[in-house]
């Protein structure tokens, strides 16, 4: 079927199937799944600027659905989410402006593609290493499985970063953390959202867990709330710049709606470190897909 805005021909069932798959990932891992959906669209032949904008549009609707499910389960820290938005929105806009600059220079595909590969590989390897360590700690010290985080030095260092004003996050069980640390996490992940068309969850979730000390299950729910905001803003910004094919996004979302519910229900049965170990495989797979398309 032809999608005339992006000027590509793709089977709509492939798009709905991709949506279903990333919907399950979104609900289960608390990520928008953009880092998988984006490479899949790119691989299928969608121009990279449309991949970025359309991926954000698709994630907007899907993350709202998954976020509502997690909020009902009490997994969203609203205070943390609202503070993070202060960094997320400017970050998204800076990323979108960089895409516009790359479009005018004419090397968007290479820059965005290789950025994907580097970032996804780094995130995947780090998360795998950390979750394996955490699982060993759990076995030897018998700590609560959902709260085991092995990178204590990073956590302690960030907590020592007490640049005022400080804020308490009772829902997450965090006594005191600098507002600047929260805004920094939002800004970095917002930049990635605007530049790569991802919700930023694959980076925001590890940063919330390791830098801010948020429990994994709260990080999952809060992250989905953040994705809805950053992807919504990114959709408007990229649509104004002509980078969104909403027909592709709507088709993908039909599959994502059902996948998100199944994924969210699955979080009840898997512990924090195990969830992070499973999560670590996905960025590596996405990096390989992007690399194949660039080299091909």
């Amino acid at each position: 079927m032809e999608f005339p805005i992006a000027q590509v021909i793709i089977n709509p069932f492939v798009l709905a199937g991709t949506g279903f798959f990333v919907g399950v990932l979104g609900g289960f891992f608390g990520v928008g799944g953009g880092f998988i959906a984006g490479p899949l669209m790119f691989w299928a032949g969608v121009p990279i600027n449309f991949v970025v904008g359309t991926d954000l549009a698709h994630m907007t609707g899907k993350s709202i659905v998954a976020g509502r499910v997690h909020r009902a389960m009490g997994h969203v820290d609203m205070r943390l989410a609202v503070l993070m938005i202060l960094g997320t929105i400017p970050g998204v806009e800076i990323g979108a402006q960089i895409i516009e600059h790359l479009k005018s220079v004419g090397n968007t595909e290479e820059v965005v593609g290789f950025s994907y590969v580097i970032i996804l590989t780094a995130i995947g390897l780090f998360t795998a290493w950390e979750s394996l360590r955490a699982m060993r700690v759990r076995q030897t010290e018998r700590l609560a499985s959902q709260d085991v985080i092995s990178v204590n030095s990073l956590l302690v260092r960030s907590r020592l970063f007490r640049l005022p004003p400080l804020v308490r996050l009772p829902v997450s069980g965090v006594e005191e953390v600098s507002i600047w640390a929260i805004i920094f996490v939002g800004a970095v992940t917002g930049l990635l959202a605007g530049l790569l068309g991802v919700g930023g969850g694959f980076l925001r979730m590890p940063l919330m867990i390791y830098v801010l000390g948020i429990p994994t299950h709260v990080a999952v729910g809060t992250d989905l709330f953040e994705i809805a905001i950053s992807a919504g803003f990114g959709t408007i910004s990229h649509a104004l710049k002509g980078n969104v094919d909403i027909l592709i996004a709507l088709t993908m979302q039909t599959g994502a709606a059902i996948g998100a519910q199944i994924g969210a229900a699955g979080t009840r049965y898997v512990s924090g470190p195990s969830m992070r170990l499973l999560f670590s495989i996905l960025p590596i797979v996405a990096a390989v897909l992007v690399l194949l398309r660039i080299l091909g």
Partner: protein
Amino acid sequence: MRSLAIELSIYGPLVTVYFFLALRYAKEPLLQLYYENPPLYATASTIAIIAQGVLLEMFTSWLLRRIGLR
């Protein structure tokens, strides 16, 4: 797994019909907006994706309650 199978068997055909109808009737107006009025296209796109997300979720929940799986 039973919930998933039942949901997929009812929801799948309905959604398939829906997206073929939506793609057929929305294609031309959206293409026109894309080229002629980008701010309106951006607004329409955002509203469409949010509305569809919420409606699909409500429909799925209603369906599950209706068949006694939630």
